[in-house]
Each structure stands twice: as structure tokens, then as C-alpha cells.
């Protein structure tokens, strides 16, 4: 049995598709082999702006190079684009924790030669050898981290110790919103049921635990106003008070609070929350691997990342600490040790089935 990545298929079957794909890639990527031009394919929006201001521009000035920035708005389309473009189309890409495993398995990333990065040791130990990065080599360089926590509106919900139970509370029927993502729904349900989200085992049985999780998801479905798909949809839900409680991203809520939505609260419930991290990585076939590593090393400098991270709204993956950083909603005083990361192999094994069942729940067929 032979495994083929998308790229190998293109190489193997030749011209016709390849012409089209290359044409598209030419528009997206920066496959310049000119020295001095580094392609950066990052999250768009405010993340990209912060990266430009605090990393890219100083880096360009210091190294006298040009960084060509392009952006994506979700992990999956980023992976698809890398997958369907010829090698060398991208230099630095930005996988998140939940797609790191896929990116590495699909052979889309170059290993990072950490010994060439003098600021590598600034990273918290957890991030230096991330469990969800398979193999011995490091493929990703975590930049900042966060949680997928709970958002609630204090005008309607009064709680001192927020718990995931709230997302199953019938009092908030039709005022609950959670992300439209089967894997996260399973993870979340497991947390609220007190199961280990990375085994789902109940009394040693995956099947029993899974059934409990599915039941909980079906129960929650009856209370949900809508499943949100993008960060913007999430913001709209809480901003318009369509929903009073649900899951969310700390950075987005922080931005809303800054706009005056003080009634919104972001919390990591007592049962814990799934951690995540956004990483820099080097795309397979990059012709500027060294420069990319210099870029990563540059970003890890205290004076760079301590300005970047509050601007993005998430605490840095390095040890630098300022008042501003400590005040971020996702800040973990234990240096990332408290974050619950998913087990990518476990997910990969079961995700299709979870998706099917989540769809069945949505269609009232569970």
C-alpha cells in the first residue's frame, strides 16, 4: 500500500491538472527564489496586522529582506492550499494545534532545525516538544496559545464558578451557541461529563463513554440556537445577544470587551478547557528555509513577542511576562502546563465517525 500526497499525484499524472494548479498557486503563493523575499502565509485580519507591525516590519529592516504576506481565514483551507500547490510555493505557514498533526502527516512541513534558532529556549518546555507534533523532529514553532473556553453574558447569567454544565442548562434553551465542529463537541461533552477527552473511556470502555458523549451532544442540540462556523459568526452571536452562553475564543471576547461589551465574560470552566496554539512552520520545499528560521528566531525575542502577543490578544508561548500579558484572558500562570491538548492520533482514528454522528444529531436522526 502506497501513500500519495496530493503533490505526488500531480507529479505522477502530469500536465493538465498541474498547469491549472500552478496557475492558481502562482496567484496565491510566493514561489520567488530570489534571495531576500520570504513568503508568509498567516491568519488574516487583526492577527496579520499585528504580525506585520511587530514582527514583519522590524524583521525586514534588520535583515534587509522583503516579506510577502498572504493570508487565510481557516486552517483547513490553508492546508488544502499548501496541499494542492507545488512544493516551494510557500515559506512560512501558520498551522494551529488542531491541524499540526495533519500537516505533519501529510508531509507539508519541513522539520525545524531548532539548534539554528538561538531563541528557541525562550519557549516554555511544553511548547518546545509539543505532544501533538508527531515524530522526533520539531515541525512547528508555537507563537502564542489560548483556550477554547466559555463565553457568557453577565446580564443574563450570574455565576461565580462557571461550569460547562451551563451549556446543558434548559434555562438557556435557544440562547446557547457552540462551534460547528464535531471534534470540539466531543471534547467539550467529555469534559462536562468528567471523561478524559483523549480516551473518552467510561469505566475503561470507549464505547460506553462515546455513547454518553453522543447523548450529551444530542441533548445540547435541542438547546442550541445556532452552531457558529467562523470567528465573525461567534462575535455576532454574543454581540447581538442572540446567545447568552457558549464556547468562544478569548481574543475575540477581549476585543469585544475593549469595544465596551463589558457584560461579556470569558472563562476557563472548572472542568478545564481545550488548549490550542498558533504556530509558525516552514512549508515543505521552501527555498528560504534558513531565512524562515531566522524569522522564527526573531519573533521569539522578548522585545518582539511581548508587544505582539497582547496585540493579538493571546499570551505568548515564551517565558516573557508583562502585566499586559498576565491580564490576558487565556493566560496560564503554569506556563502552558495547564492546557488540555488533544491527542491527534486518537482524533484521527475516530473523527469520521464523530462527524457522521454529529450530522445525524443535527438532522434529528440520532
Amino acid at each position, binding site marked *: 500500500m502506497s501513500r500519495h500526497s496530493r503533490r505526488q499525484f500531480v507529479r505522477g499524472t502530469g500536465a493538465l491538472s498541474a498547469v491549472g494548479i500552478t496557475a492558481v498557486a502562482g496567484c496565491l503563493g510566493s514561489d520567488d527564489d530570489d534571495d531576500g523575499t520570504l513568503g508568509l502565509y498567516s491568519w488574516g485580519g487583526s492577527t496579520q496586522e499585528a504580525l506585520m507591525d511587530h514582527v514583519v516590519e522590524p524583521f525586514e529592516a534588520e535583515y534587509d529582506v522583503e516579506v510577502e504576506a498572504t493570508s487565510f481565514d481557516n486552517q483547513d483551507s490553508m492546508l488544502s492550499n499548501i496541499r494542492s500547490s507545488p512544493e516551494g510555493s510557500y515559506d512560512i505557514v501558520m498551522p494551529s494545534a488542531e491541524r499540526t498533526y495533519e500537516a505533519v502527516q501529510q508531509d507539508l512541513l519541513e522539520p525545524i532545525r531548532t539548534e539554528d534558532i538561538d531563541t528557541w529556549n525562550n519557549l516554555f518546555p511544553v511548547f518546545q516538544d509539543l505532544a501533538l507534533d508527531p515524530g522526533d523532529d520539531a515541525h512547528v514553532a508555537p507563537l502564542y496559545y489560548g483556550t477554547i473556553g466559555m463565553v457568557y453574558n453577565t446580564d443574563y447569567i450570574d455565576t461565580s464558578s462557571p461550569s460547562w454544565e451551563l451549556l446543558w442548562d434548559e434555562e438557556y434553551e435557544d440562547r446557547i451557541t457552540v462551534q460547528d465542529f464535531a471534534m470540539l463537541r466531543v471534547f467539550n461533552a467529555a469534559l462536562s461529563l468528567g471523561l478524559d477527552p483523549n480516551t473518552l473511556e467510561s469505566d475503561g470502555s470507549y464505547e460506553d463513554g462515546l455513547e454518553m458523549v453522543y447523548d450529551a451532544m444530542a441533548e445540547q442540540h435541542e438547546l442550541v440556537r*445556532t452552531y457558529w462556523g467562523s470567528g465573525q459568526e461567534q462575535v455576532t452571536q454574543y454581540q447581538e445577544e442572540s446567545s447568552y452562553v457558549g464556547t468562544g475564543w478569548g481574543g475575540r471576547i477581549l476585543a469585544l470587551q475593549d469595544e465596551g461589551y463589558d457584560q461579556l465574560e470569558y472563562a476557563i470552566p472548572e472542568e478545564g478547557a481545550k488548549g490550542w496554539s498558533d504556530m509558525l512552520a516552514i512549508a515543505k520545499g521552501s527555498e528560504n528555509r534558513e531565512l524562515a528560521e531566522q524569522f522564527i528566531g526573531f519573533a521569539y525575542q522578548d522585545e518582539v513577542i511581548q508587544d505582539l502577543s497582547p496585540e493579538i490578544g493571546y499570551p505568548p508561548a515564551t517565558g516573557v511576562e508583562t502585566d499586559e500579558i498576565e491580564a490576558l484572558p487565556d493566560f496560564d500562570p503554569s506556563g502552558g502546563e495547564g492546557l488540555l491538548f488533544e491527542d491527534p492520533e486518537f482524533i484521527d482514528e475516530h473523527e469520521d465517525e464523530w462527524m457522521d454522528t454529529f450530522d445525524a444529531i443535527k438532522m434529528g436522526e440520532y
Partner: protein
Amino acid sequence: MSGDGEPGTREPYADRWLAVRSRILNSPALMNPVHWLTGRKRALAVAQAGVGIFWMMLFLLAPLLYIFTISFWQTGAAGTMVQEFTLENYYSVLLQDVSLTGFDVGNIYLLVLWQSLKFGIAVTAITLVLGYVPGYYLGRSDSRWLPVLLLLIILPFWVPLIVRYYAWMLVLGESGVLSWAIELLGFGSRNFLYNDLAVISGLVQVLLPFMILPIYNSVSKIEDSLLESAKTMGANPIRTFYEVSLPLSLPGVVAGCILVFILAVGSFLAPALLGGPGDQMIANLIERTFLQGQNWPLASAMSFVYLVVLFVMITAFNRFVSLDELFGEGS
């Protein structure tokens, strides 16, 4: 170039220049310029068609072929594809959880597809009802404001779709226009978002121009003399309408229905933004399978089945309508 205008037969000292010159003068291009040009024109037309076909191949057929191919591949770990033939994907899409004897269809794909088709039919029916009158009016109008009115119909296309859906959310939402108006009338504030009706109304709002324009187009092609002759033969305006205008506007109706139906069934943003937790449509399912699930082979099989179903439905619809047109005049 063939030397059909052979110059003089015997010119012992015929210098080259003379031969060349007579050749040029006798060349088809000069001797029969019209014929020569039409010949080239045909070549040009072939070239143009060739470019079109090439473009189709490149941007339509090649990706389709690729999707068709990988729909028969196996899924490996972590979203990789295993290049080995399997019918598993089609089995999952078409046969899994389908029990024909008891009509117990628990197949999510088919259920979502069915739900999408229902949305498509509802949206098509509503846009037809709402779009016929303006389309007809514009088609018959000889107002000098006609270009402006047409521009107004097309104007929303300048606004990105996502913005139009967000605008619709502002209309239906918690603090939206509709809720405000209903409150003014003395009823309590209500939320009209996140349900079937929000999806359907949003699609209707966005797709209405696709119904109006083809109807406008075919109505504007109805010659005045046909309506006038109906009148001189004793048909009052209402009978003129359903004896002449209505049947002659049918091509536009059919085109509009097909366009709206395809766009509605395949809509992605409307269910994502306006729909409730149960409002799944086929495009969202395929997208999730493709991206979240990283299961390209399965998503490809889904796409292909969807394509075939849509194609069959439209062909059937088209056939049905043209037959109707042929035998429509029963009395």
C-alpha cells in the same frame, strides 16, 4: 500557399523578382480576397472555439475529472489519500444506513441532500411568484427609466454575498428591522433568525434577480404585435396575458427556475449564517467533509453524487416543461 496562379509559361530570363511578384499578385489573398478572408475567418472561429474548449477543459473538466478520480480512492491516516480503488465512498454516500424495505433512510448524506432539494424547491417557488411581476413589468416597459430599473436589479451583485447575508441578519435579527416593526405594532420582540424561514427568505432575497432577469429577457422578446393581434381578435388584457404573454414567457421562467434552483440547492453561506442548528445543506456537508474531516475521497464522492442528482433533476424538469409547451394548448 499553393501556386494556383501559375505565371507565364516560358520566360527564359524570368528573374526571380518577377516570379515572386506575379506569385504575390496571383495569390489567393489578392485574387479572391473575400474567399480568402472567409476561409481565414473559419480558421479564426475554430481557433476561438478551441480556446473556449481549452478553457473549459482546464477549469471545468480537469478539476471534475480529478474529483471523479479521487472519489474512488481510499482514505489514509491524517487526511492522506491512498491511491487504491474502492467503492467504499459511494457506498457511504448512497447505501449506508439505507434500508429500502421499510423506507428507513438514515443516511445522513441523502437526508441532507433531500433537505437541500426541499430548500431549493421552496426558494424557487417563492422567487418565481415574487419575480414574475417585476420581470414581466420590466419586459413590457418602454419607460426611459428602464435602464435605471435594470441597474437597480443588478446593483446588489456589486455587494459581496456575505455582506448581503449579514445585512439580512440585521433585518431579521434580535434588534433587527423586522423585530422593531413588529414591536411598533404592539407585539413582543421576536427573533426571526436561525430557522428554515430565515434561510429561505435570505436565499429568496439574494436570488431574486436571477429569476427577474431571465423573465425580463424573454418577456421583452415578445413582440408587441402578438399582444396587439390577440386584442384585435377579441382577447381582453387578462386573456391576452394567459393565452399569449404567459406561454411565451415560459422560456424565461424555466431559465430563471433552473438558475435559482441550482444556486439555492448549492448555497453555502445562507444555511451557515442564517440557519438554525438543524439547517444543514449539502454544500456545508461537503465542505465540512473536505476541510474539517480532511476526507477528500468521501467529499469527492459526495460532490459527484450531488452533481449527478442535480443534472438529472434539471434535465427532467427541462424535458417536462418543453413537453408541456408542446401539448400545453389542450382545449
